[in-house]
């Protein structure tokens, strides 16, 4: 697919985030060996690749968790250094991390608004608006197809999918300019998955730039505008929607290695 890479050259819009030749080393482990990537407003850019390819590490440098060992980040055209995830958030980047970044002992509402709590009243009586926070949380969760028993259940006691939905709903709620989703549908049921995909589609149409990581080719094809494949810390290339078929994409995601043969309906895409 290396020959298909120039396909992106034709794009006009300046990217909101442009990551240039990012490298990231952990001690003696090289997780990223020079990855370039950009995303423009109103598109959904899928980041695909084998397990351990470096996808999560890459988006973590984008959202201020890791500092790149080498390489540059341009935000809206200007070089930018995010010192903490809070900086990235203030710039309008919201992320669903693969590990969800939630506090098990705290309630759903408190996790939802963690770091950006709605307040009411004036100092010194400025306080959290719990009523509003609870309502918004329940509403946002219902939109994604989860009916919580109550907004004060501890996140640690939620089911895997319920928990993931909290993280997605939160990111969607706060994702002003860029929304990064690291395998957001991995634990979701069919109904919740289709809701999330529909949500991605909706926010993209509202002009938000979406970075979507998934292992499911069908999900990627359903909402993706461009597809970038990582393998062992390097880019294999980027393709536009329509330039590539599901089977081609699947082969690339497997890192070029052969897959076990399966009977039945799995002949096509997993």
């Amino acid at each position, binding site marked *: 697919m290396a020959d298909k890479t120039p396909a992106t050259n034709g794009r006009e819009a300046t990217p909101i985030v442009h990551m240039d030749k990012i490298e990231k080393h952990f001690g003696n482990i090289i997780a990223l060996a020079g990855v370039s990537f950009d995303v423009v407003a109103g598109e959904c850019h899928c980041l695909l690749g084998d397990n351990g390819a470096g996808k999560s590490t890459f988006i973590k440098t984008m*959202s201020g*968790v890791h500092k790149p060992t080498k390489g540059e980040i341009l935000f809206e055209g200007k070089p930018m250094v995010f010192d*903490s*995830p*809070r900086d990235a*958030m203030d710039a309008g980047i919201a*992320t669903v*991390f693969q*590990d*969800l*970044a*939630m*506090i*098990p*002992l*705290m309630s759903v509402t*408190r*996790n939802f*608004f*963690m*770091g*950006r*709590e709605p*307040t009411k009243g004036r100092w010194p009586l*400025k*306080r*959290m608006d*719990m009523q509003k926070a609870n309502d918004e949380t*329940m*509403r946002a969760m*219902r*939109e994604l*197809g989860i*009916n919580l*028993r109550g907004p004060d259940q501890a996140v640690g006691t939620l089911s895997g999918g319920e928990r993931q939905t909290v993280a997605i709903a*939160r990111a969607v709620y706060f994702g002003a300019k860029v929304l990064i989703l690291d395998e957001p549908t991995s634990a979701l049921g069919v109904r919740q998955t289709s*809701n999330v995909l*529909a*949500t991605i589609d*909706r926010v993209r149409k509202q002009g938000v730039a979406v970075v979507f990581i998934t292992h499911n080719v069908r999900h990627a094809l359903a909402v993706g505008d461009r597809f970038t494949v990582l393998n062992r810390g390097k880019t294999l290339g980027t393709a536009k929607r329509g330039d590539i078929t599901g089977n081609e994409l699947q082969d690339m995601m497997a890192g070029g290695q052969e897959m076990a043969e399966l009977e039945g309906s799995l002949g096509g895409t997993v």
Partner: protein
Amino acid sequence: MADVAPIVADERLKREGVVTTLMKRPELGAVAGAIAVTIFFLFTASPTMFTLSGVMNFMTPAAQLGILAIGAAMLMIAGEFDLSIGSMVAFSGLIFGAFVVTFGMPLVIAIPATFAIAAALGVLNGTIVLKTGLPSFIVTLAFLFILRGASLVGLKIATGGSTQLRGVRDALSGDWLAPIFSGNAFTGLFTYLGKIGVIDTFPNGTTKVPGIPVEILWFIAFALIATYVLLRTPQGNWIFASGGDENAASNSGVPVRKVKISLFVLTACCATLVAIITVIDAGSTDARRGFMKEFEAIIAAVIGGCLLTGGYGSAIGAFFGAIIFGMVTIGLTYTNFDQDWYQVFLGAMLLAAVLFNNFIRKRVTGER
């Protein structure tokens, strides 16, 4: 997406009573412990323990400990320890005493100056912990020794060789700020109540209880404010988040460093408040002040339901934890047991109080 499912009563919930709901809160477990201890002393202690003066008597140490315990609890909820609190009491006491006695400053200058120095030490503690990534246990432990040692040296310098600095009361006589930090509040009211016979008086006519010791008021006010901050403000949310999972909190945009440093400052200031109150009250300070108070504060916080691993606990819990601790330590002197057995009783009562609290909570909330 428009047709969002309506909110319906959920068939997956059993009904639960108000009691159950209340008992799920960490602080209310500590209340159960406090009640158990009270009942124990009602049966075993001299009845004078629960007279007005008896209550003030055990509430005073409880309040002094409690101010430290609430600060320690908030820091523990944020996932860090401050072992330098006790030494900080001695050190702030020395600084404050020296300001007042040696330099003759009025309180309106001496108190803010002492707090400023304490806050700076808090920032130092916090910064070292966060910059190096060392456990706060070990960093503040170093300050436990350093501040204790510095108090000794400082006292010797300030007094010319003694480890006891006296004369604070004389130096402050007539200072208008003193009543806020020492002595008793509402003395007028109490004298009046004594006159009309509502409260007991000594043979010479003075009331047995001259008023409410100010530390008790500070203690209650601080517990209320801390609870409000923890439960009702964004900052409270950040404290829980920082202690629950530092990485997750920081990834979700919580300014973890600021939160933790502020709390190190808070514990240092709590220690300073206690130091100022006790130094003015006692009129003196010495190198042993606050000895082991860091552990007592942590103990009170843990009795009150704080987790040592962070992320869970409450200020009200620490409030009752301190009262339990104060009531047990002073209360035992109202009973008729031999002082040799004191520690055995103390340990047994602590264990009994937390076991009872735990038992009640388990009963009420069902398994798990």
